[in-house]
């Protein structure tokens, strides 16, 4: 269930692999996954491959991350979302804040 992350070979990209759930219970793990690495990378990828359960706190966490990573200049990609999760993100207009690749 735990979140995983990895830095690309050139050190420019951080990828965070979200587990099955992305809700309030993942709050600490999610923060730990990027906080210390944020300064050294130029873009962050959120890989949602395994993710099934998403609620609004996940959206909140993503927004906090965005703010910390440069707000409107933040280069954050959300990838591999299932159609339903994509819809949730679109409902929240997240496509305006993040680069969404389904």
């Amino acid at each position: 269930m735990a979140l995983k992350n990895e830095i690309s070979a050139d050190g420019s990209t951080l990828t965070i692999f979200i587990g099955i759930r992305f809700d309030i219970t993942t709050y600490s793990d999610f923060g730990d996954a990027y906080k210390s690495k944020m300064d050294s990378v130029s873009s962050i990828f959120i890989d949602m491959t395994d993710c099934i359960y998403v609620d609004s706190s996940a959206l909140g966490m993503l927004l906090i991350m965005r703010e910390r990573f440069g707000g409107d200049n933040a280069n954050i990609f959300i990838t591999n979302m299932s159609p339903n999760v994509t819809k949730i993100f679109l409902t929240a207009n997240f496509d305006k804040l993040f680069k969404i690749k389904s």
Partner: protein
Amino acid sequence: MIESSSLHILIVDDDMPSLITLQRFFHNTDHLITVADNGAEALAILKKGPFDLVISDINMPEMDGIQLVQEGLSNFPSLYFILITGESCVHSFEELTKAGALTCLAKPFRRSELLEIVDWVASLKRDRKLTSAESIASTDRKQAVRNEKSLWNRDQRFQAIMNSAIDAIILINSRGYITFWNPAAEVIFGYKSHEIIGKDLHSIIAPQKYHKQYATGFTEFVKSGRGVLIGKTTEVMGLRKDQTEFPAELSLSGFKDQDTWHAAGIIRDISARKQNEKTLLTAHSELERLYQRLNQEYEIAEKVFGKVVRKKEKEEKNIKHFLSAMKDAGGDLFLTASGVPGVRHILLGDFTGHGLSAALGAIPVTSIFYAMAERGYSLKKIASEINNRLKAIMPTGLYFCACMVEWNYKHHIARVLNFGLPVALLVNASGVIKNRIHSQHLPLGILPEIDREFHYEEINLEHGDCIYLFTDGIIETQNTVGDQLGQERLERLLTKSQVPEQRFDDICRSINEFRGDTPQLDDMAIAEIKCDTTVDDHPVEGIESISDDVPAILNLSITLHPGAMRADNFIETLTDLLIGTHVAARKQKQNIFLILSELYSNALEHGILRMDTTLKSEPIGFEKYFITRGEKLAALSTGWIKIDMELLVHNTNGRILLQVEDSGRGFDYQSVQMIQPDINALRGRGVYLVRSLCKEVAIEGAGNKVKAIFEW
């Protein structure tokens, strides 16, 4: 050789084997043979009829050969005598010829030597030109002396054979009385030679029930020398001295002596062999029983296999597979399942072994695969779980090679994980191999835990692209000369097919043609997944609505108290419980989870924990909010949240009625406007999402009760 006229010859020897041997020397000659086993009997026989020649042993009890010659000649002066001498003979040749013997012959001698002398006697008789015994005696003297030593050896050897034979050798005369009984007969039947010689054979060594049969047969034999048992080897029953019966093999032959028929029997005790045969028969029937049980178990395995692996009634759209098991329950497995809409999970696998062992492995693999795939777990998670379960339950050496595909048929992406199966192939519509997906990992069930970050091949599919999966059995298919099909040949056959729609059938046929009459050596399986960009609706496994007219309704009501509220995966479990295996509901899983989660969070955080939402307005505050939430939750001792749910599924449509009520004092909901929050705002999004998904959301009571209706 001088033409011989027939002689009437009397052979006298107290030693029965020697007598038989001598008698046998005259088989197929014109001479008429009579035998006697002592001097007195010989003299009596001589009186009965005219004889030409007497061949007699020297050493005999009561009346020896020399006496016999003397007595015989005094009565029948024209009679010729040949004396047989052995090493123990104390008489010289001269003494013997003086006594009246024509000549003497030292044991051992060949048949031809004896017949030569007999022929000579015959010529003497014919010409009546017998001059004197000495005339030929002198020529034979040297020969006789030379033979002395070896003669004795031959007799001893003959005795040794009779004595050491493991078969009983028994002779009977025409009255059925025993005239010879060798040591083996003593051992087999338990009678000593001296206690049985001269007694009636059949009444002693044949079981009572056969007596009549033997009597009839023997009467016929005495008359004609023929009988059903003569000249053959037959299985009979023998009777020992202790009155136990035993199976025996009897070889019987008849010989004529003094115009009467005698019989010689060789009897072998076959009770040990019979016992062995019985043991073998028992073993055979035991084997037969085991084989049947094995077959039964195969049947069970097949049934188990059939139950865990859902057989597809109809061909699945764009997925084809072919399984050819060696036995009833093969080791190959093909599974497909669907959980997340738009995604299909496909597994082709090959267990080491067949039958029960494969069926045993198939149970966890299948149940894990279906359960996890249908709940929308990713390929990696499923593979990892299968690996861990197999590792835990399967003995070392039993493992599972598999290729798993997560096929997103809406976005035309396939992720392929290959655990020890042959290279999977991506072939485009014009038959060109675009990609080869080699095994990236060890087979499942070997490593105690497989790395969750393992690599998979992600393929972007174009219209008409096909993914082919194969098991070892395909690559290793042998033709009649023992060549293996091999990867290269398989690829050639695959790309040869010009019509994409027929490619799968073509390759199956090509493989069968290659194999010819060669017996199948392994389970064979092959699968095809075809990308069709024109279709985006695929059938989904699971329970469809019960019928067109009767909707499926499910009610769930649950009340949570502080302890239960602290469990953090509660909503996930509740969602699974509610939608169960309803296909139509499962497609809405993420939405249902979201609504439940939001309503529950509101009840918990605001109703029960009375959290200050304004905290969430800033990132720092959000962090504080989270920590406070945890502290309050841990300290919580009173309060409840009641969730009522009703699920109604009708065909592909469905409706969920949710009511979440908490023990809190509510809030002034009238003042809260339900408007879309600023997209950058960190709070207020949950309620908006629920409202945008649901047909109806109503806050009731003091603001501690919310009702939502979600339809699809």
